[in-house]
């Protein structure tokens, strides 16, 4: 298992070390990318597939971190947009075309539109109400997926999704699928990273730390929260389209409560606000659930539930939070 996790750890830590010289941070990031790009050459197909799943879930967790860590909006229904993107990308691959950019764009657009339709209610609420509302919306979307059987396949899930095609050639091999997922992951990660570092991102952190003051300064905070909600929904939809490409099967649990909760766990383990941390958290969740789960008699959920409890007591600021004291104070 360490073989799967190892590539992400050293570089990730180096890249977020506080006050690291810029050059070293960049060097770390480049090293991570190079290692990530090279691993399928050395790993067995099963490990490559696990790593692919980690990347998919990591992009989803990163999109959630934009809400939870950067803006301070703890969503428990983010899987709704992830699943919606996955269903849309899968559906368009089956019925229209699996040619590369199409499922990606359709998935991202569906996630963004779903978030735009539901977000105006959620961003009006704060704190625990936001938590409850996103939870309820996630459940409603799952219900929609169950009821709309002609499109989603209902309880059976959406099956028979073809491989993604790049320039006409299907990506049948696990290694090629991995590189495709890695490329899109890096694109999505870079997008979220740029947003978080932009003036817009600074305003979001201001809203997280003191929304009333931001409003007093003259920021239309509700509009900002709505915008980031839609953006996060779009990135989650993009991650969903990667799920459709990797698993080639989408089912109701991908929309549901547990998926959303595990993404939240990934964000919190990594230290909310740290995008690298969210990726590490995602790796832990996927390794426990998918790789260790079968050897635990299918009870990976039990372990993750215990991890939730431990994280709250032992890592009040997440793993990255421990490594980076005072990160929040800036």
């Amino acid at each position, binding site marked *: 298992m360490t073989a799967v996790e190892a590539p992400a750890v050293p570089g990730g830590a180096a890249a977020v070390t506080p006050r690291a010289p810029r050059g070293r941070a960049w060097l770390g990031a480049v090293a991570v990318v190079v290692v990530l790009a090279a691993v399928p050459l050395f790993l067995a197909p099963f490990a490559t597939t696990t790593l692919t799943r980690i990347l998919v879930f990591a992009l989803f967790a990163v999109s959630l971190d934009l809400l939870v860590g950067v803006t301070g909006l703890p969503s428990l229904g983010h899987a709704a947009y992830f699943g919606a993107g996955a269903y849309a990308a899968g559906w368009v691959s089956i019925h229209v075309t699996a040619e590369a950019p199409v499922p990606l764009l359709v998935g991202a657009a569906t996630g963004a539109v779903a978030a735009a339709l539901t977000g105006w209610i959620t961003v009006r*609420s704060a704190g625990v109400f936001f*938590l409850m509302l996103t939870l*309820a919306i996630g459940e409603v979307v799952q219900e929609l997926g169950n009821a709309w059987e002609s499109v989603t396949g209902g309880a059976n899930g959406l099956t028979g999704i073809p491989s993604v095609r790049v320039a006409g050639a299907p990506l049948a091999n696990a290694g090629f699928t991995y590189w495709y997922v890695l490329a899109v992951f890096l694109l999505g990660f870079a997008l979220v990273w740029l947003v978080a570092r932009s003036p817009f991102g600074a305003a979001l952190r201001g809203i997280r730390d003191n929304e009333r003051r931001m409003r007093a300064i003259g920021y239309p905070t509700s509009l900002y929260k709505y915008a980031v909600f839609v953006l996060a929904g779009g990135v989650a939809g993009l991650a969903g389209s990667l799920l459709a490409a990797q698993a080639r099967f989408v089912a109701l649990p991908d929309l549901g409560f*547990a998926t959303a909760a595990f993404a939240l766990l990934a964000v919190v383990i990594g230290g909310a606000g740290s995008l690298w941390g969210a990726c590490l958290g995602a790796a832990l969740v996927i390794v426990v659930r998918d790789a260790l789960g079968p050897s635990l008699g299918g009870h990976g959920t039990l372990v993750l539930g215990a991890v939730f409890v431990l994280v709250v007591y032992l890592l009040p600021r997440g793993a990255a939070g421990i490594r980076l004291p005072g990160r929040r104070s800036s």
Partner: protein
Amino acid sequence: MLVSVLNGLAIGFLLFILAVGLSIVFGMMDVLNLAHGALFLGGAYLGAAFSGSWGGFLAALGIAAVGGLLAGALLSLMTGPLRRRSHLDQALLTLGVAFVVAELLIIAFGDDPLSAAAPPALDGSVTVFGAVYPAYRLVLIGVGAVLAIAVYLVVERTRVGALVRATVADRDMVATIGIDNRLVTTAVFAVGSLLATTAGVLGGPIYGARPGLDATVLILALVVVVIGGLGSVRGALVGALIIGQADTLGRVLLPGLASFLLFAALALVLVLRPQGLFGGPAAVGAR
């Protein structure tokens, strides 16, 4: 139609028993207990495992009551240190407990859905105004109504209830006048959890017991609490009866859209009255 209205009443009272504990625990301790649905599921599995006889039914109720009290006291102890931390931490903690409990229940009772039969004498049907109706649900309406009135009277009319309401309104002030509010909150958390497990046993013959039911009932209870207003017994009752009717009538009139109806009701209430129908200003997240 009459059958649907009665079904709505039965589900409404069941939801009240489930939701009132969630509501008061939140109002008092500021803890959103996401393990509440898992406690219900525990009761439902107990009810299913012991179903088929009066003895079994009563035994299930007894075990569920004791288990609920213990679980609530434990949850109260676990969330105590988090009181001054964010809602997210409490949510994560109780979410973790919910996953562990649900997974242990699956290990104990298996993956397959279990059905629970009503106790023997109530297993049949009776005729109500010319409509054939399951006797158990009729009794459930009666029991639910009695429980609702009892909880309401205890909270609104007794000294203990006054203490509970005072702690909901301002726990620090209650501490100032020399009352150990930790004891009060632990007791309320325990009773709230007892109500959740009891609702599980009572709801067994309606919902059965299956993996995933915990999330379903948790959402229903949250919707009830948000509509009624956090920390309000009256709100939980009205919210539960509204959701009971919306859910059952929705299934009859607009099949497939029932859950959207719930969501629409929730959205409407939140837009018009963000603190819920009976929530005071204190109930709206000061933190």
